[in-house]
């Protein structure tokens, strides 16, 4: 038995330790709510078992098909990872070999997986999938299970060509996010951006998948093509290019539209000076643009065929008014203006009335962009010799810095040119933290920063597609 002298500290320790334990016990219960509520800044992550996809072909060892299955898996894994809704069970923790078990659970399938093995791992969700080729068509069969409720929540067969593996994978990711949150994911959306290239420092415009894959050129003008912008339906891109004008024997910053469906390209505005910063109105038929034909840049409204050009701003006092951004409801324009001395963000009605100054901090605020729900405006703010992204409520309250990254040498980096993802959860932007200007994205709270492009080019002005 323990003697008197020792039992006292022993008891105290015991009391401290046991109360700590009780606290932990109740804490874990409180945290364990049902999963995924959209809109909460810090959503608790669901633990998911994303198991490798089984090849159901005649030759299960077919190298090409196994590689294909891994590619399919990698795309979906990246989608789900970036959604920030999930944490993934380490495959080394699996209690059964998913490749040797069926896609359905045990009582249904004799060789099915056992829910018990996944419950034990604490899994919230389990993804089981397999694929095969039927002639030239790929069939991807996939199920998602709510592990604790031992219930299937999604079961689909996706078919398509092997080349469309990316669409197929992103479609499944979108469906899963939709099933869990009620809102589709953004995995079929695209990014358009300007890329500096060549010895003459040409700038050309490219589109790519949201994850940086499949980069395709929109312009090959061998000139400076900048400020791309999506139409609301994602079928057109408006941009500015320095086009050669014979009559003045010089180049002018003209506004063009490129139509994906027809492959056509046309000139919208070619007033003397700049014709830039295009932003489609929600109707898709009109644009806001900046024109400097009278000396100072001002904001105009124009039809997409170039007709019916009319001014919205004029001054005051020869001030510049640029970078129009229309609110999602089409009623309010956010823009930058130096009417107060330094460039700041302002808002006004679509007809130019009710001008209000939105930002007062910093020395140079530019590139305003609206969140899809119309609650926030994110902009680039210049302060202490560098740009960072800031978020502000539409009423001017709640200013918050989103980016803080520096260069590897500790010097300040420019983080600028923000644009929201279609679901409003992420913001794409450029940063020169690794010397070259590359595309990154970050969530709306300024967490979960990720790099999108990884090359030696300089990327500028990324814009996330609005629809899809």
């Amino acid at each position: 038995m323990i003697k008197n002298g020792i039992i006292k500290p022993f008891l105290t320790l015991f009391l401290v330790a046991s109360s700590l334990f009780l606290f932990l016990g109740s804490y874990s219960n409180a945290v364990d709510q049902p999963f995924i509520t959209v809109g909460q800044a810090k959503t608790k992550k669901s633990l998911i078992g994303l198991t490798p996809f089984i090849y159901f072909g005649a030759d299960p060892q077919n190298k090409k098909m196994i590689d294909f299955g891994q590619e399919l898996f990698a795309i979906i894994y990246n989608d789900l990872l970036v959604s920030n809704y999930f944490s993934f069970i380490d495959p080394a923790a699996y209690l059964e070999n998913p490749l040797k078990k069926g896609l359905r659970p045990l009582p249904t399938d004799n060789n099915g997986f056992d829910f018990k093995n996944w419950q034990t791992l604490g899994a919230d969700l389990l993804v089981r999938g397999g694929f095969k080729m039927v002639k030239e068509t790929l069939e991807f069969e996939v199920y998602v299970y709510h592990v604790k409720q031992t219930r299937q929540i999604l079961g689909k067969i996706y078919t398509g060509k092997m080349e469309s593996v990316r669409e197929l994978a992103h479609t499944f990711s979108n469906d899963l996010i939709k099933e869990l949150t009620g809102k589709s994911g953004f995995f079929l959306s695209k990014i358009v951006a300007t890329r500096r290239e060549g010895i003459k420092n040409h700038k050309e415009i490219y589109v790519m998948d949201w994850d940086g894959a499949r980069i395709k050129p929109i312009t090959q003008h061998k000139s400076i093509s900048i400020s791309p912008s999506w139409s609301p339906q994602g079928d057109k891109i408006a941009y500015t290019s320095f086009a050669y004008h014979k009559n003045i024997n010089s180049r002018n910053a003209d506004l063009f539209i490129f139509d994906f469906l027809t492959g056509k390209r046309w000139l919208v505005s070619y007033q003397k000076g700049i014709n830039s910063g295009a932003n489609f109105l929600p109707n898709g038929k009109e644009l806001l643009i900046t024109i400097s034909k009278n000396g100072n840049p001002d904001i105009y409204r124009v039809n997409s065929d170039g007709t019916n050009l009319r001014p919205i701003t004029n001054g005051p006092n020869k001030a510049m008014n640029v970078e129009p951004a229309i609110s999602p409801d089409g009623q309010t324009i956010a823009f930058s203006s130096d009417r107060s001395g330094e460039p700041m963000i302002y808002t006004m009605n679509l007809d130019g009335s009710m001008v209000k100054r939105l930002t007062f901090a910093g020395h140079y605020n530019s590139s305003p962009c609206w969140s899809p729900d119309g609650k926030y405006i994110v902009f680039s703010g210049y302060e202490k010799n560098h740009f960072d992204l800031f978020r502000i409520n539409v009423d001017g309250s709640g200013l918050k810095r989103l980016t803080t990254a520096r260069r590897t040498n500790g010097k300040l980096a420019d983080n600028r040119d923000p644009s929201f993802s279609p679901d409003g959860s992420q913001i794409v932007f450029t940063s020169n933290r690794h010397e070259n200007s590359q595309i990154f994205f970050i969530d709306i709270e300024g967490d979960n920063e990720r790099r999108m492009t990884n090359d030696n080019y300089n990327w500028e002005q990324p814009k996330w597609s609005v629809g899809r």
Partner: protein
Amino acid sequence: MALISSGGRRSRVVLSEINVTPFVDVMMVLLVIFMVTAPMMQQGLEIDLPKTAHSGVKASEDPFVLVVRRDKEIMVGSTQLPLHGLQKKLKVIFSTRKNKQVYLKADKKVDYGFVAEVMGEIRAAGIYQIGLVTNPKSSL
């Protein structure tokens, strides 16, 4: 510099108290298992009744049960795990698992030495909350 010299001076002071650190260490080891056992007694019984737990009242319970059968087979979920490598497996599982408790359910006929060995593996995997599940009426 000043800090270091004053520290040096202080270290020369004679310690007259007993160094309790090893004591605390030993007691903490004892404690963790001891203190967990008591509250686990009731919870252990609960998890023996999965059908009532399933009715949704406490769906969040999410227990990790490690069963040691009479023939010394270690079962997790419906999978048998070898004692060798158990520590590594548990470490991976608990790297993402939210609830960090292990409920140890050993048959009463399994010798104490083997159970101690299993507990050693669990501890070595970095799990400090081990519940000994006692269920006098049934043996697996």
